[in-house]
């Protein structure tokens, strides 16, 4: 009894310490956003003079910088935004489609060459894609896909990490379910479409977020393919506003905030499925 009491006290102290530590980590995670938002309200000249501060000065703070995004270089920021959004949607839809069917094929069926193909998937996952940039670039020139969104998404059409994830996910699904559907006269494709897709929804949630993240953040390959200013994505465009001759803080900071907002909304809407999906498809060696 007494021992339990001591144990309980010890646990309370540990719990407070652990929670306190997590609060510190949370502050570390959130502080850059606070800086970003506070700076986006102030004129760029204030940034030049005082640097990055959390100080709120009602005299100079306003949302003027946000409306200035519409006029900066004829509203080019929204062109970047549109490019980023189009690429994100295209890349995510195609990636989910191909990733899920290949992952399903590898996870459900036993066939000759299955292990070889899965090994190739693993090898490709461990290859730095960057080393293939030069020949890919030449291929895109030959295929006349420079300055096109298709050219940007081609290397991400069949994402190996999604194949891997969907395969792991399918391994955990009882095959009796699929057998039953097959006996009912469903073709293999109908089984995938009608039975598997609904079961795999958590996996799709998780992969949607990962794919959106990757696409929204991608810099190097889109920078090589999209050379037309108006087709730039947000990361490329924001990069061009930082120059050795002075930075356009008036654009950078509200632009940064606006770039974060949509993806955080997608995440907050899908986060339950996301965490559940990632957990269910956990890496099983």
């Amino acid at each position, binding site marked *: 009894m007494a021992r339990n009491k001591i144990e309980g006290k010890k646990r309370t102290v540990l719990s407070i310490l652990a929670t306190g530590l997590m609060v510190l980590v949370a502050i570390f995670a959130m502080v850059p956003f606070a800086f970003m938002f506070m700076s986006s309200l102030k004129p760029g000249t204030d940034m030049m003079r005082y640097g990055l501060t959390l100080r709120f000065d009602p005299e100079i703070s306003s949302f003027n910088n946000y409306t200035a995004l519409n006029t900066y270089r004829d509203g080019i920021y929204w062109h970047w935004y549109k490019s980023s959004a189009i690429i994100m949607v295209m890349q995510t839809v195609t990636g989910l489609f191909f990733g899920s069917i290949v992952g399903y094929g590898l996870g459900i069926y036993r066939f000759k060459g299955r292990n070889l193909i899965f090994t190739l998937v693993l090898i490709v996952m461990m290859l730095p894609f960057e080393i293939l940039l030069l020949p890919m670039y030449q291929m895109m020139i030959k295929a006349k896909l420079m300055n096109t969104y298709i050219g940007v998404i081609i290397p991400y059409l069949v994402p190996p990490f999604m194949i891997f994830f969907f395969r792991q996910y399918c391994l955990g699904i009882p095959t009796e379910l699929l057998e039953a559907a097959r006996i009912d006269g469903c073709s293999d494709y109908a089984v995938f479409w009608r039975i598997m897709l609904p079961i795999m929804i958590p996996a799709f949630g998780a992969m949607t977020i990962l794919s959106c993240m990757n696409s929204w953040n991608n810099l190097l390959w889109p920078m090589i393919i999209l050379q037309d200013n108006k087709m730039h994505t947000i*990361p490329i465009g924001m990069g061009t506003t930082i120059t050795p001759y002075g930075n356009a803080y008036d654009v950078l900071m509200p632009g940064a905030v606006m770039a974060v907002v949509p993806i955080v909304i997608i995440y907050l809407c899908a986060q339950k499925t996301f965490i559940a999906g990632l957990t269910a498809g956990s890496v099983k060696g």
Partner: protein
Amino acid sequence: MRKSSAVNQLSRGDRRLWLNNPKVVPYVFVAPFIIFFLLVYLYPLVMTVAMSFNKINGPGNWEFVKFKNYTKMDTRDFWMALKTSGRYALWDVIVLTIVPLLIACLLHSGLVKGSSFFKSLFFIPSLTSIIVAGIVFRLAFGTLETATVNRVLAVFGIEPVKWLSYEIPGNTVLILLTLWRWNGVNIVYYLSGLQAIPADQYEAAQIDGANAIQKFFHVTLPGIKPVLIYVITITVLGGFSMFTESVALWQQNNAGGVGRTIVGYMYMVGFKKNNLGVASAVGLTLLVLVVVVNLIQLILMGFFKKED
């Protein structure tokens, strides 16, 4: 009812019989990857190898130069880039394996109040573009005395640091940016592994009188080993092929090449100086580096040992 639908299925199946042949079906499912592998990975890889032994004077105008492209890599810039990437990869693996693991264990332990809130919150930095977030880090770690971090240091009487002008402090900022951006992703990976460990293993350890630290080393670590191997492998890859983080802090062409990585060097040689042969040689060096380091890591972790 069931019979008629089966008959329907058969007659429909007749028309595309080979597509419904059980021997063909799996290959239809995996076909996209096979095509993709050949076109987007194998062909460019073969081309990279070929280009690394040639001087490319123009489209279709190749000149076989044996190993000259590889000897041409021996420049101060290349070795500096290799050092930058190597140093970054080392710290990246150390910090981004251990810190998220400890946080995930705490979140999983049940000690933390509101752990699901923290789980969601820790992931948010991963959603942002590194270029965008990098702007904040760049300004916070500015050179001037008025830069945010230097001002904080001044409170403790520490001299202002020119963070981004030198390699070691620069690498520290890079690692902080990486930790900020990827911490949440690795926490989620680890949590998925931790949840897969059966509770009775902990109970058994408890009965044997194991303390928290013993439990961590004898139950938790072996339990999450597959996840750990996965995290280390992708971190090694991400570390050596890092590019975006360095652009976020220094742009592509900074004086002196502080912070320029192997991929940054490859980009400069290939796209800015248009020397495709040497750039291919740099790329292959990176590939060999990643593969060798990862193989060593996987052997040390016992990945190739067959489980009994």
